[in-house]
């Protein structure tokens, strides 16, 4: 076991955790958090590949590192757009829920009666 392998296993765990939360979590804000946990796990994977590619006196391969730096900033801009959409939804409807089950239920109840 060396350092990259250990953090690689950690990254694998983060990806699984993030995806699980992204699937089961009903609140959009928590989904955005889950998306970031997942994304950071993927980035950490790149770090493992970079560290393993250490050569010619460098501590790591600079290509994956540069990719991750742009990736972090792009991930942030996607998060900011998602948050802006969420807040607009909240301002319009007073709720951040993306589900319309509740509305459907109340409609069908009205139709029954």
């Amino acid at each position, binding site marked *: 076991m060396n350092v990259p392998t250990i953090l690689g296993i950690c990254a694998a765990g983060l990806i699984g955790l993030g995806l699980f939360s992204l699937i089961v979590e009903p609140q959009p804000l928590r989904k955005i958090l889950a998306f970031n946990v997942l994304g950071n796990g993927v980035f950490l994977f790149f770090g493992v590949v970079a560290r393993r590619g250490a050569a010619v006196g460098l501590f790591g391969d600079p290509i994956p*590192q540069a990719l991750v730096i742009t990736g972090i900033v792009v991930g942030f*801009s996607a998060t900011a757009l998602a948050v802006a959409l969420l807040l607009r939804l909240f301002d319009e409807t007073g709720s951040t829920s993306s589900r319309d089950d509740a509305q459907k239920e109340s409609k069908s109840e009205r139709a029954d009666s």
Partner: protein
Amino acid sequence: MTIGVGFSVALGLLILAVAVFTIGTRDSFAAVVAFVVYGLLLSLGWMNLYCPDVALTEAAVGGGVTGALLLNACARVRSEKTSDFKKSPRWIGRGMAGLLCLALSSGLVAVVILLPNPAPTLAPEATRSLSATGLGNPVTAVLMAYRALDTMLEKVVLLLALVGVWSLASDRFWGGRATFGHLPEPDRPLIFLTRVLAPVGIIAGIYLFWVGADAPGGAFAGGAILSAIWILVFFAGLSVVPAVGSLGLRIVLSIGIIFFLAAGVAGISMAAGFLAYPEGFAKPIIVVIEVAMTLSIGATLGLLVAGPPGQSLKP
């Protein structure tokens, strides 16, 4: 087991534990705070992998600016009652999702353990023409020279995201100022802290950008720190967010891309092709582009946190 490996195991477990808490806790505010901690721990992980450039960017963007954005969002939707929990999928759905994610994680663990040895690397190619760029930091050389097109397009993505955020404004507020929602009246300690921190932060941001040529740092980390200071100044009420219609603001936002494109087009006639730098002038051109990029990144990140305009210029 050496001390280094022991540290990595402890750090990996801590990161996983904080991630579990972020996902598992029912209080959204606690989840966001845990996420900021998670970002800072991850940047320690990046240091552990000898990637200081990424560690700086992760700490500034992943922990800092994302934290500000999510905390602000959390405070605004907090009034909503958290009754959604019972609407989440039933235990069968949860179980299936859990199995799927467990399988994914196990597969990735197998991939990590079975990674090829010796590992493939592009490090020799990346360092081969490092002297021609005049840069000492290979990561900056990749960002600004070998893969400059990626970096330029990434600026475009940032700007598109900002256009997307701005387009969510109500018609009556268009051209006005972003408001971060409704900020509470700043208290005196916050104003004092901002007055003390802002000059230090601005110097730190410029320093990080400047040493990025030869040492860990660069336009992304520097720009993110500048944007964090800018956000703090808004929170303390020491300045107002510039109106989205202002020409000066739009110039600052797009100057990074403009300089990048200008250098790229000039490269067609003066050097080998689009975004190729003429021999001997690579370093000065890169520095000029990076100055513009740092300003653009700082302004764009700050305005992305500020959100769509919510206040009209007319009283």
